[in-house]
Every structure is written in C-alpha cells, then in structure tokens.
C-alpha cells in the first residue's frame, strides 16, 4: 500500500482522533494538559501538511462515516478548499499552543480547562471543514461555539464573562436559525447531504431554508450589523484564544456560506440573494476599519480589523457565481492569509500585553526597541492585511479586484480600495507609535523568544503565501464547482 492510499483511508481519523482523544484525556488528567496540547497541536499540523500534499497530488478525498453512503449516512469530504482551511487552522492552533506556553507563564500556568477546550476547538474546526452533511454541520457549529465560549470565559473578569455570555446567546440564536433551515431542507428534499441536495433541490423551500441558514451564519460570522458581540469577545479573551477565534472560528461560518451559496444554491437564486451579502460586506469593511481607527486598545483594534476584513469575504460572495474561479481562489487566499496574519497579530498583542502590562495604543511608544521581533510581526501582518505585495492578502485582493472589474462591479472595486487604505491607516497608527522613541533601554531581556517566534512564523507565512499563490489558488479549485476554469479571465 503506498503512503497516499494510507492517507486516503485514514484521514478522518487523523483529523479528529488525536485532537478529540487529547481533549478528553486532558480533561480527565489536567496535569497532562500541557504535554497533550503541545503534542497534538504538532501532530495535527503534520497531518494537515500531509493531507495538503495528498489532495494536491491525488485530488479530493471522500469518506462515508459509518460506512453508509449518503443520504442514509454522513458524508465527509476533503477537497482543496477544505484542506486549506484545515491547514490554516492547524498552523494557527500550533502557533497558539506554542505561544500559550509562555503567554500563561506570566500567570503561573494555563487556567484549568484551557487545554481540553483548545483541543476540542481544533477538532471541531476540522470536523466542520470536512463535513458534507448539513445536520452534522449543526452539531459541529455547536461544538465549535461551546469551545470558543469556554475559551473566552478563561479571559477572567466580569468583562470577559459578559462578552462570553453575549457570544453564547448570539451564537445559539444563530444556530437555531441554521437548525430550522436544515429541518426545512430535510422536510422538503428528504436529505441533508450537501452534494445530493445540490443536484436535487429547487423551489421556494430551498430559498427559505438557505435564507434561514444564511441568517444564522451571519450571526456566527459577525458580519455587520451582527458584529456587536465580536469585538468584546475577541478583544477580551486570552491572546492565543483571540488568535484562534478571529483567525478561524468566524471564518468557518463564512466557509459554510461559500459552500451553501456556490455549491448548493442555483445560480438564479444566488444572483437574487447575494447582493445583500455584498452590501453588508461593504458596510462591514468601512465600519470595522473606522472603529479600528478609533479603538484605544490594541486587541480591540485587531478585533475590529477582523470585522472589516470579514467584510471583504462577504463582498466577494456576490461576485462569485459569475467570476467563479478567480473569486473562489481569491476568497480562499484571503481566508488563509487573513487567518495567518490575524493569528500572528493577536499572538503579538499577547506578548505586548504581558511585557508592557497593558495594550493601550497610546502607550506603545518605542516598542520597536523593546520588542523588535514582535514589531516585525506587526509589520508583516500589516503588509498582508493591507494587501501590499507580495503577500497572500495582495494576491487575494488582486483576484477580487480582477473579478469585480471584469464584471463591471465598480462599487466593489471602490470598497476594496477604500478598505485597503483604511487598513493602512489603522495598522500604521500602531506602527507609528512603535517606531516613536519613548523607551531608552534596549531589547526587553525577560521575554522568551519562544513567545514571539510562533507569531513571527505565522506572519511570515502570510506574506510568503503570495509567492505560493499559484499553487494555493489551483489547490483551492480542486473539487470546487469551478474546477478547471481559468483563474484570471480577460474581459471579452
């Protein structure tokens, strides 16, 4: 049996087994938590890399849980987009786990429950990315949501508690909308399997079900104006947790929307409904950026930046049915580069918080002398978030612009450009402080480089992604509805 076949059979076990097992064991024996967390995060990252290789070489993978093919059983699939999401989650989770070690050292050790929750969150995200079953996705969404809420609570203090509770209530409301949509889907079409529905479903029930599920996912993704819960939750959680939430948990909801609207919904319906997403996305880009500009705390600024960056993704949705491949790949690149850059930013902010003792932006003068490596993280992440070449963010923005112009969607073009300039404004507001004198000493002696390297790795990966864009773009298309289309079209 060659190694590729081995992977093709075992991949669900690889993605779910270690994380779930580790999570449960870390719960039973809290003392093992740290070792399990580090080990499983590394294992998971290795598995993700292997699977990326496998899918790139051998094409998408499928698996019928329980051995029952859909519609009776639950279908799992690992196509290009899914494996890229798995990779992003694995990298951020690994970096977060490495960073958590020193982040929590300031408080003694990671709070009780951190490692099991962390591992469960990893597993839930993996499960969410590979599921092709709408009801199974509901369970995954709940698992993800619970783990995320629990991790926010660990921020300690009343503010975190309130943020977590708000997050929980909003998330549950969103889940219920999604759940009702799934029920309608089953009632009307007798299956909850995505590929089957894509080939069978049509009619008003499909539209209603999609609308309900989309509304639920809007809440979970925190898209404007449903974003109100996001900044306090992401800004108040421990930094490694914020990294994971901002980088992946909200993007997971967008990932599902992409699946729903581009694989399931017929083109006519998508054309009718998706402009709503475009409008909300545009508003989110501007609103998030303006609030990021006004934020006084670094972590809150980063959280608002997430609101803004998510807007790009929603902005891309309505362009996708027509510009297909370019936007699909562009969105994949954007999700990936945002995940890496945002993860890096939050981990960096955590280091700042621990070393400086606060994260007020006004008080960051001279940070470039105290924590040069962390400031380098901010610079690299800024490059990707603003969309400056040669980062992954740049390629993504290039593809989105290309698609928007080719379709004559000038409003999207305007929002993309305004958003980039605003991103530059809020990122350089922080960087300008970092480069101002205000600290006479040299590098901070007590800061373990181990705390900073993971963040640096993520940020560098976000920038380097631009150089692998061709490969990533092609991989994202594997198994997608746009497989085989040319990536960059020329207007007729």
């Amino acid at each position, binding site marked *: 049996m060659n190694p590729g076949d081995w992977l093709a059979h075992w991949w669900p076990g690889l993605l779910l087994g270690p994380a779930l097992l580790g999570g449960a064991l870390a719960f039973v024996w809290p003392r093992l938590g740290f070792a399990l967390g580090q080990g499983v995060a590394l294992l998971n990252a290795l598995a993700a890399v292997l699977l990326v290789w496998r899918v790139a070489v051998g094409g998408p993978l499928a698996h019928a849980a329980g051995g029952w093919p859909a519609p009776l059983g639950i279908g799992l699939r690992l196509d290009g987009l899914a494996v890229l999401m798995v990779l992003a989650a694995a990298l951020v989770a690994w970096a977060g786990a490495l960073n958590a070690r020193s982040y929590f050292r300031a408080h003694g050790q990671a709070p009780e429950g951190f490692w099991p929750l962390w591992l469960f969150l990893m597993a839930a995200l993996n499960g969410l990315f590979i599921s092709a079953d709408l009801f199974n996705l509901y369970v995954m969404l709940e698992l993800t949501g619970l783990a995320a809420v629990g991790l926010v609570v660990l921020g300690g203090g009343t503010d975190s508690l309130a943020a977590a509770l708000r997050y929980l209530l909003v998330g549950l409301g969103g889940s219920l909308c999604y759940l009702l949509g799934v029920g309608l889907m089953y009632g009307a079409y007798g299956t909850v399997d995505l590929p089957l529905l894509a080939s069978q479903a049509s009619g008003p029930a499909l539209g209603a079900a999609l609308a309900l599920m989309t509304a639920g996912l809007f809440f979970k993704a925190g898209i404007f104006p449903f974003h109100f819960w996001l900044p306090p939750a992401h800004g108040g959680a421990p930094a490694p947790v914020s990294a994971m939430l901002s980088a992946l948990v909200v993007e997971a909801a967008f990932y599902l929307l992409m699946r729903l609207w581009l694989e399931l919904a017929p083109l006519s319906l998508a054309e009718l409904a998706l402009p709503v997403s475009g409008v909300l996305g545009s508003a989110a880009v501007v609103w998030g950026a303006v609030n990021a500009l006004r934020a006084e705390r670094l972590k809150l600024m980063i959280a608002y930046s997430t609101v803004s960056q998510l807007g790009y993704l929603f902005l891309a949705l309505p362009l996708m049915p027509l510009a297909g491949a370019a936007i699909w790949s562009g969105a994949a690149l954007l999700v990936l580069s945002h995940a890496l850059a945002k993860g890096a930013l939050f981990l960096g902010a955590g280091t700042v918080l621990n070393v400086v003792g606060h994260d007020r932006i006004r008080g960051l003068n001279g940070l*470039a002398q105290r924590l040069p490596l962390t400031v380098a993280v901010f610079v690299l992440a800024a490059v990707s978030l603003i969309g400056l070449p040669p980062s992954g963010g740049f390629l993504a923005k290039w593809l989105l612009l290309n698609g928007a112009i080719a379709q004559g969607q000038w409003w999207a073009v305007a929002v993309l450009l305004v958003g980039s300039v605003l991103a530059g404004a809020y990122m350089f507001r922080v960087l300008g402080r970092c480069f101002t004198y205000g600290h006479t000493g040299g590098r901070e002696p007590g800061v373990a480089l181990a705390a900073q390297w993971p963040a640096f790795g993520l940020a560098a990966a976000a920038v380097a992604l631009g150089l692998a864009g061709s490969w990533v773009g092609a991989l994202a298309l594997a198994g997608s509805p746009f497989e085989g289309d040319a990536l960059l079209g*020329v207007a007729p």
Partner: protein
Amino acid sequence: MTLENWLPALILLSSLLPGLLIFFLAEERHKTRTILNLGGALIKVALVLVMVGGVFAGRSYESRLTLLPGMDLVLNADALSVLLVTLSAGLWLVTTVYAIGYLEDSPHRSRFFGFFSLCVTSAMGVAMAGNMLTFLMFFELLTLSTYPLVVHRGTPEARRAGRIYLAYTLIGGAALLLGVVWLRVLVGPLDFTETGLLADHAGLDPNALRFIFILLVGGMAVKAALVPLHGWLPQAMVAPAPVSALLHAVAVVKAGAFGIVRVVYDVYGVEFSAELGLLAPLAAVAAVTIVYGSVRALYQDSLKKRLAFSTVSQVSYIVLGTAILGPVASVGGMVHLVHQGLMKITLFFCAGNLAETLGIHRVQEMNGVGRRMPYTMAAFTIGALGMIGVPPLAGFVSKWYLAAGGLDAGQGWVVFVLMASSLLNAGYFLPILYRAWFLPASVPWPRERAMPGRFETHWMLLWPPVITAVLVVLAGVLAAAPFSPLEWAQLIARREYGL
C-alpha cells in the same frame, strides 16, 4: 538555469539578503554590519557591471516566477532599466559609505540599515520590473521600506511626516493598483514592450484607456511629487540626510518618474499616448510643477526644504521630456534621470555635512561656510551650478536636449519654461553660493562638532559628495563618450521609437 535567468534576481538578492541579516544583528556588531553593507553594495555594483556589458552586447536577462497562472513576477534588463539600475547601484554604494559615517553613534543602526537595504532592493526591483505587476509590487515595497526611514528620528514631528507620507503614497498606491488590475482585465498580462504593449490591441474603449492612464500616472505622480501631489516631500525632510539623499536621487521620487516613463513608453507607447491626447496635459502638469517648485524653493529658508522643492521642480524635467513626442526630448528626459540623481545626491550629502559638522540647517547660517568647509562647498557649488544648467555640467546637457526636443516637436513654449526655471534655479542657488563664498563667517557656528581626521569633516562624509560632484562634471564633459548616460539615453530612445 543559466546566468541569464539568475542575474536580475541575484542583483536583488545582493541587497535583500544583507538587509534581512542586518535586522537580526545586535546593535553593537558594528564591524559585521559594515562588512555586510559594503560587501552587498560592492557585489551589486559588480553584478550590475556584468549586466550592463551583457545588455550592450545584446544579451537579454530575465528572471521569472509565476505567482498565479497568467500573473508572473518578471525581472529583466532592457536598456531603460539598466540606466536606473546602474545609477541606483552606484549611488547606493556611495550613500552606504556616507550613512555609515553619518550615523556613527546614533541608535538603532541595525534597523536603519536593514530598511535602507530593503529600500534599495525595492528601487532595483522597480528598475528591473518586466511587467506592471512586478513594478507595482516593488513600488509598494518601496513605500513600506521607506516609511521606517522617514520616521527614523522617532520624534512626534517625524511621526507626523510619516503619517503624511503614508497618506499620500497609500492612496496613490490604491489608484495605481486599480489602474493595473483594470488594464490587466482589458488586455491580459502587462509585460513591458518597447514601443508599447497596447500597440498590439486594437478596438479598446479609448475613454477607459484614458481613465486608466490617469490612474496609473496619478498613482506614480504621488511619488514623483508632481503638483498638486507633492505635499509629502517637503515634510519628509525630517528624515536623516542619507535617507533624503536616497529618496530624492534614486529611490522614491525617481521611482515615480521612472514609472511614468514606463507607462508612456512601454505600456501605452508614446505615439499611442499622443493619439489619445494624453501627452499634452501631462506636459502641462510637468511644466506647472517645474515652475511652481522653483518658485516655492525661492522662499525656503531651511536648506533641506529648499532642496526639496528644487527636487519637485527638477524631477518634472524627466516627465516633461517624456511627455513631448519625439526622440530628442526623450533623450533629454531620460538623461536627466541620471543627471538629476547625481546632482541632487551631491547637494543632499553637502547639506548633511553642514548640519552634522557645524549644525547649519538654514540658508541664513551659511555665511562664509566656504572657507570653513571648502571641499564640501566646492561639491555643493558644482551640484548647484549643474542644476542651474551651466555648461559643461551635467544639467546643461539635459536642458539642451529638452529644449531642442521641444523645438523639434514644434512646442516652443518648452524653451520658455526651461529658461524661466533656469532663472529661478539661479535665483535660489546663487544667493547660497554668494553667502558661502563671499560673506564673512558668522562664527560661532550653531553647533560645531569636533571631527576626527585631517579633513574638514569625517572622511566618510566628505568623500561621497566629492565623488558624485566629479561624476556631475564628467557626465557633462564626457557626454559624447561611449557608455555615458547621454549615449545610453540615445540608445533607449532609438529603441522606444523603433528607429
């Protein structure tokens, strides 16, 4: 893989790698840093010389990396890029020496030289970019790597200047990005082609093309500091002298002007641009900038600000030469690309010397400084006279070709613009020279520092301006010699016009 494929990439790496290494050097590793800096600069000059020889012999160099299908990063060496590459490589070497001397004891040198190397890398990338995507990429990288240099002083004033610089360049970058993507959608990959890549595409909407032209040139005009987009340049004077020198002579401002040349010649094609009616407005903007910059320079008391407005004016000579149809004017514009770089870097080095040695920042304080620092002021005088256009210095050659080109194209008004500008140049440079050489010194100097060594100032500060001043003279006197900037510009013009 042959040398032809690798040379452009190697030229980039010769400054990129030292730059990245320097970031991680501890502050007190003085010697290692100097070796890295100078080693990289020397290797780069050597590599560039190899390439110049190759291009002259008709070889073509190209490094290519595919980012997305139909979206390549291309570095290549055509005649035009060689012009800027050679200038940048040479001046980087000189400026590195100067910067090492200038920043002798100041803090954060690792950060400074790291970004300094990145800045040069980006300028090289801009020069060698083989298509619009690559150009855009290095153009933005240039913004990013110069920002920390502009705010290097770390004062609130520097931060403000940095903010203004970013506001201008990021918005300009956004316009440029839009133009590039739009054009990409219309015609496909945007590889630079001598005589213009749009020549192969008929039947495109001329209005869309006009608008894209405005976006592209507008985005670059921010960096080239064309009026009314010049506001950031005088503010950016808070940067340390070597940075100003680099910004004005080879990197940022020059990248903008160079980009305009690329767009007009290699994207639109000069004849097609004229056909679309785009050249006349561009020439008008350039003419206004030339005069406006000179007038503003007259009123500046701060020496560096006077030089800054002088840059605003002088860089537009390049744009003017580009915007006038006809090979002679083109030669004038392109040769000024080099000549302006040599002259302006000399002036900034000298201003830096005055500030560093005697604490002089304002024109008023320069009385009698010629006797205190004769070498520096001699170099300054050569640079200033060159700017005015006194024969046989470099500036004269540029102006001569520009004027002749204007007459050639039947646009006599160009001569008047040039004459007015020369008069104004004289108006703001001659008083300085008069003060320096003929007025008695107003000792004590504002803040004099004792410099080690036998010369009027540290040798690392003194030699760079003297060398560049000599080059200013040589470029003028030996204009007709082979390999002179003028000869090279004529070669380019012949190719661009397909003669």
